[in-house]
């Protein structure tokens, strides 16, 4: 799986040498990090092209290119202004706004404003990390779980139900709510799992169709009397009791939304690392993903693996859904994780970007969360639609899935391609 082994110790090697070798393998052309960064560069370039070809002022400037000697320069300037404004808004909205930050540093005031972009990115990244780990574990088993979004919705529904319908001390209520979310996701994950294991139905079609089914189910549940916010006719649920909510990490007074969910995400990352690298079940999963034949030869029960991977993946996706509810809105409505808010779909791209490794997924989530949050700021500041962020994300993933192409574009030394491949490549199981 990994052709980089920076941490392997060679007897008698000096510490400095180990460090140099470790750095070299991390940043050589073989490294997935470099590959991801190059893919990101390409993604931003294509995003810039999309902006250029859809913004009138830029196109007008280029149309007048032959009118005067200064026109080409002017056209370039307009292009850079527009693209630059968009990407600058993305950066200041998701990472840091330098003047504002400098103001806080020098005066010691308005820290809340300065840290809001980072806090928003972390808030967005928290459920994304969990959902991406869910997708990543499935990928490592050679299973393509496109249903993470539906599973997260089910988790959100179950969590919101437990969080809003019963009231008890937070010590009990919060774990119970989270467990309900996991259970909801597991139920949604069990369907494609069992169908694949016992009928051979391809998980891609089943999970995709279930996403649509669950989207309808969401509205159906929200309109039921036991779930709907009393006195409302819209599709909106009751609000969770505060004992079931994930409180802001720095207190409500700070104005920063980043919540204790970050700790849950960290625990999930630790769990995923332990599970994939240290547990025997995780080993079975990875063997199945790398070579189904070897797995069968080694006596690994393929049906059991398929069902279990869908239960774990679905459960984690459900957890992502309930964390999303409990840390941000505290209620579920008809737009929950629908359309561009669908973290389950972003999670697929994040998992591919992070090469399904827990730490890779953390960095990938932070990056794509920044793109999403920054995209919102870009839409507000420049009027360029938020969808640009999704376009950039999908371009990045197309390139990450095709490492050889990236290497050819940047004229890198070509090494063995190690793109993600699914265990099943046709229709039959």
């Amino acid at each position, binding site marked *: 799986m990994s052709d980089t082994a920076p941490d392997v110790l060679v007897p008698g090697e000096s510490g400095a040498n180990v460090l140099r070798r470790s750095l070299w393998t991390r940043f050589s052309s073989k490294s997935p990090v470099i590959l991801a960064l190059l893919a990101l560069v390409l993604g931003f370039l294509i995003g810039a092209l*999309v902006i250029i070809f*859809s*913004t009138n002022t830029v196109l007008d400037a280029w149309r007048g290119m032959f009118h005067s000697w200064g026109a080409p320069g002017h056209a370039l300037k307009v292009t850079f202004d527009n693209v630059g404004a968009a990407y600058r808004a993305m950066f200041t909205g998701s990472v840091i706004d330098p003047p504002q930050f400098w103001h806080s540093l020098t005066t010691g005031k308005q820290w809340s404003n300065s840290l809001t972009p980072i806090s928003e990115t972390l808030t967005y990244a928290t459920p994304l990390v969990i959902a991406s780990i869910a997708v990543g574990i499935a990928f490592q088993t*050679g299973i*393509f779980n*496109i249903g993470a979004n539906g599973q997260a919705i089910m988790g959100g529904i179950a969590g919101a139900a437990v969080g809003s319908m019963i009231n008890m001390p937070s010590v009990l209520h919060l774990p119970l709510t989270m467990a309900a979310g996991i259970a909801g996701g597991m139920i949604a994950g069990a369907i494609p799992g069992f*169908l*694949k294991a016992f*009928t*051979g*139905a*391809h998980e*891609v*079609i*089943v999970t*995709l*169709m*279930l996403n*649509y*089914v669950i989207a*309808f*189910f969401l509205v*159906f549940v929200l*309109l039921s009397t036991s779930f709907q916010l009393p006195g409302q006719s819209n599709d909106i649920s009751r609000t969770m009791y505060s004992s079931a909510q994930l409180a802001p990490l720095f207190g409500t007074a700070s104005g920063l939304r980043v919540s204790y969910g970050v700790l849950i995400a960290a625990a999930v990352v630790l769990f995923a690392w332990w599970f994939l690298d240290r547990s025997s079940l995780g080993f079975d999963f990875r063997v199945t993903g790398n070579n*189904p*034949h070897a797995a*069968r030869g080694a006596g690994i029960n*393929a*049906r059991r693996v*398929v069902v279990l991977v869908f239960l774990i993946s679905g459960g984690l996706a459900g957890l992502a859904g309930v964390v999303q509810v409990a840390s941000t809105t505290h209620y579920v409505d008809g737009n929950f994780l629908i*359309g*561009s808010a669908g973290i389950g*779909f972003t999670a*697929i*791209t994040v998992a*591919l970007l992070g090469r399904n490794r827990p730490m890779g997924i953390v960095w990938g989530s932070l990056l794509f969360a920044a793109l999403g949050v920054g995209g919102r700021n870009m839409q507000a500041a420049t009027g360029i*639609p938020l*969808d640009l962020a*999704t*376009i950039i*994300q*999908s*371009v990045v*993933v*197309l390139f990450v*899935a*095709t490492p*050889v*192409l990236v290497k050819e574009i940047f004229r890198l030394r070509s090494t063995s*391609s190690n*793109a*993600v*491949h*699914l265990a*099943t*490549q*046709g*229709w*039959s*199981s």
Partner: protein
Amino acid sequence: MTSLVTSLENRDDAAVPKVRPVGRTRVIGYIVAGLGLFIVAAFGLGSSSHAHSVLTFTPVNTSSNAPWSIGALTVLTRYWNMALGLIAIAIGVDMIMRRPKGAMMRFGVAAVLFLFTLLLWAGRSPGPSAVPFVNLTSILIGSSALAMVLIYGALSGIMCERAGVVNIAIEGQFIGGAFFGSVVASTTNNFILAALAGAVAGGLLGLILAFLSLRYLSDQIIVGVVLVTMLSSLSSYLNLQVLSPYPNLNTGNLASDIAIPILCKIPIVGPVFFNQSGFFYFMIVLVAGISFGLFKTRWGLRVRAVGEHPKAAESVGINVIRTRYINVVLGGAIAGVGGVAFMASQGAFQVGYTSGLGYVALAALIFGRWRPSGAVSAAVLFGISAYLALNLQTYQIPISTEILGMFPYLITIAVVAGLVGRVRPPAADGQPYKRD
């Protein structure tokens, strides 16, 4: 049969142990018999003994092309439904006892019986329905628009998968075709140019899929799914940036019907088949052409050889990679035209209105065993059930809209789960091919 089983066992993609196909007929038999029982109990005994249903056959929008009137048919709901339910039970029992071939065809018949009895039950009077009759022709016309899109999608899938490439990006090609088709149709007012634009958009997407999966051996399913994500966000982006400020780029694109003289006057058949838009007729030509081409010409033999056993094909001098490139691009173009057809049946482009039809088309393709004729029957079945799911609310039946909306997707899941193990895809479908 044994050779088929062993060849399945030797397939190179086994993540899950094979399920013996022998038991499937029986399982489907139980499902069919269960459907029959449900029909008898719910739609037969569920309607009072004096309730009757009226079937009408003249389409609502009567124009000069209205078919010859054949009046209406009035039936006693309870007894008709019970009789039809018993037929379904008989088919199911026969399948359980005898395990005949053609299980899918029988399942299709049972599904049609189910939908028909459901209609009779929903439209019964006295009953809750505000509409005291069931207009069969209108329902078929409404379904034909959905079925047409599914057939375009399934044909696209056949072109690609027969050559060994899984095209899961059909949904994206629909979106791309619909978007550019709408812009071209609005500016030129010419649907042939719009179809060409859609074909180019879909073909380009096919080219990207082919390029990444054939040259760089990327995973076809991953690339396909990411292409769909990209197209749906790109279309939403362009919708806000281009179509919203210039609404005249996306308006008035309802393709008008072309009536075929005399034939269009035949009751039921006329309005459904001979008074349709040009896209419908083109689809029929395409179905016939691809069926003939794939199974009766040298080109088709080569394509199928490439999809079944690329090494053998290469050894007799067929250029595997080139065949796959051509087929995937053509398949993408067909799906692109399908997107334009859908747009033209709706009148304008809307973000997200394909709502997974591209994936349903894939299920139709599997259901139809990678054959144009089978895919057409499956697409018709899916089209009717999807249309009814969206429109049964007119009859005020006691099921909520949301539950009805799930139906097409649930049927797709049932089909894929019930049949995938039974049907045999082209042997090299989805397998990357590397020339030695």
